[in-house]
């Protein structure tokens, strides 16, 4: 494999957890709720996946447990932000702090235990000889294919179904959505819970496929990068795919540079994804300075029927 192909393969594998998290975030933010708890949710997803898989060895049960913990934490966030109308930013921060602490607490006993290969690979042997497609797609794992399917499903759901239309109405103008007969609060609950499940799966994907050992704080800011990716992707699932792989590439490019033998200390190479995040956001801000950002207009504002304050 030449360097470029290697880089693309690495981008695909490290971009997949980001893609799950970004898709979940898009679903949540489209309904008008800010979700900054992605980091905590991913850590909880990862630690629950690790514990369940070590104890049961069943992939199905593992994914079920991850989805359940994502739903439970998503319910907490939606109860706080939708029903109690608390500050969504602070609730998300609390989710991150709580998830970081709780995952470190319950994962203490399994820290450093390598997880055996859990996710089966989908072997497409006929692609083996093909130059670029072969190394990229011939032996991907099941979760990566699920992420491809989810991108298409999310795109079709948001832009081609009547529920998707309701969702967009809800994120842009909840009073109008309410008048249209859409159950605003219920819909928001549904989106936050479903999106949190996806973010939990992002953590599980990271643990089961990308780096199969539980370490405290193993996501290292990827949840926050996913929050930034939602903005890059302009709340659009198809763009999210390209943005996630671009960042996956940034994540691994430092490691790859190290492999070809460079004099730059690895600490500086590890800074690349964080600095690129800031630079890309600055570029987007500059390019879109006179344009709307594409964010749902009611993002961050709780909706209270018959009350304004």
């Amino acid at each position, binding site marked *: 494999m030449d360097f470029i192909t290697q880089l693309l393969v690495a981008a695909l594998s490290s971009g997949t957890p980001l893609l799950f998290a970004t898709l979940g975030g898009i679903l949540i933010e489209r309904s008008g709720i800010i979700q900054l708890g992605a980091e905590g949710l991913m850590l909880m997803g990862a630690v629950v996946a690790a514990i369940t898989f070590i104890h049961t060895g069943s992939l199905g049960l593992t994914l079920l447990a991850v989805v359940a913990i994502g739903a439970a934490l998503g319910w907490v966030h939606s109860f706080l932000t939708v029903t109690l109308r608390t*500050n969504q930013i602070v609730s998300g921060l609390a989710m991150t702090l709580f998830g970081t602490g709780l995952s470190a607490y319950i994962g203490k006993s399994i820290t450093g235990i390598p997880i055996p290969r859990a996710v089966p690979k989908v072997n497409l042997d006929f692609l083996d000889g093909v130059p670029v497609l072969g190394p990229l797609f011939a032996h991907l794992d099941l979760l990566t294919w699920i992420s491809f399917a989810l991108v298409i499903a999310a795109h079709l759901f948001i832009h081609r179904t009547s529920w998707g239309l309701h969702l967009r109405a809800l994120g842009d103008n909840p009073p109008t959505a309410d008048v249209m007969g859409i159950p605003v609060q219920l819909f928001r609950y549904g989106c936050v819970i479903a999106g949190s499940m996806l973010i939990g799966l992002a953590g599980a994907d990271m643990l089961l496929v990308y780096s199969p050992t539980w370490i405290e704080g193993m996501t290292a800011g990827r949840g926050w990068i996913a929050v930034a990716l939602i903005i890059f992707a302009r709340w659009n699932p198809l763009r999210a795919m390209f943005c996630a792989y671009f960042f996956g590439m940034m994540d691994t490019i430092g490691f790859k540079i190290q492999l070809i033998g460079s004099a730059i200390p690895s*600490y*500086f190479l590890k*800074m690349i994804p*964080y600095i690129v995040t*800031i630079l890309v956001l600055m570029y987007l801000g500059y390019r879109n300075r006179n344009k709307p950002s594409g964010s749902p207009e009611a993002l961050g504002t709780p909706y209270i029927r018959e009350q304004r304050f």
Partner: protein
Amino acid sequence: MTEPTSTASGAIALDGETAARTRKRFPFRLEIDPSRKESPWWMTIVSVVLALLACAIFFAANGKNPWAVYEKMWTGAFTTSFGITETLVKAIPLLLCGLGVSIAYRISVWNIGAEGQFAAGAIAAAAVTIYFPHLPLYATIPLMLVFAIAAGGIWGALTALPKTYFQVNELITSLMLNYVALLLLDYLVFGPWKDPKGFNFPGTPMFTASQSLPVLGDTRLHLGLIFALIAVALYAFVIRFTRWGYELRLIGANPEAARNAGIHIKRHILIVMIMSGALAGVAGMSEVSGVTHRLMDGISPGYGYTAIIVAWIAKLHPVGLVISSVLFGGLIVGGYSVQTMGLPSSISNMLQGAILFFLIAGNMISKFRLSRNG
């Protein structure tokens, strides 16, 4: 939707069928009482107690007696003289970082980068010992302070400038910069600044007596406490009595009105972020010079993140900040003391997150009122 008042008849006009159905099912309903602005002070205590109860479930599930855990944390942090001074030592960086984020939250700038600004200040203080090793105490400490303020301020400005000029969300920038600062710190202590006589320990050489903050008696309580208390007093004075503080309060209460009143919001954001970073930088400096006496890997057990909760629980109030930073200092020390029971010290992070959840929920619940439907 044109009706701004809150009456049940508004709901019926809006969507008669649903409202009628709701009324039949529930005789009462919750709604936000617009006249209640502040939640009562006891709500904070109730929230903290509820958070401790919720976390007790996790301890019980792990086969620990939650009461014993909390008792151990309490005795470890607040009953012995060693525990109390340790709690105060931990409260110093929390108070300084908490002040830093409070001043930013005043104008709704979500600085969550105190951790990185803390690291920047610590690095700058250590730089003084590396590059000016032979200065006397009265020259070293002020120089460290200046360096730390500058470094923290620059780190804060790196968050503010993208926000003011490129509309970049400061939450993301400040958090990304945390990772950058911690990686820079790791590079220095594992690389060029590593103590050549330190048996490969990732840290700078130990500071000499003239590079360390004076301590009180034979305790570990250091001069940083005075820095923190002066900073609190200044914060209280500036916010309450100066024109600039008034402008900050105005921006926080109503940015639109502030802009119309001719207040230069972008400039305020920049200045506030520089001050916020500088305060966290001083915290970093006082930690390396007063407690660890060297720059080393893992210098902060998450002070910058805990500071966010310290600021929220205090509702950005100066006296509240002092109380909550001591409480959370105690929580960190208590987290260490339960390690003897086989519990990881990260339980204090879990408790912090839970406290924040219950706190914001409690604040909102006390704004609700129960009213009769129909």
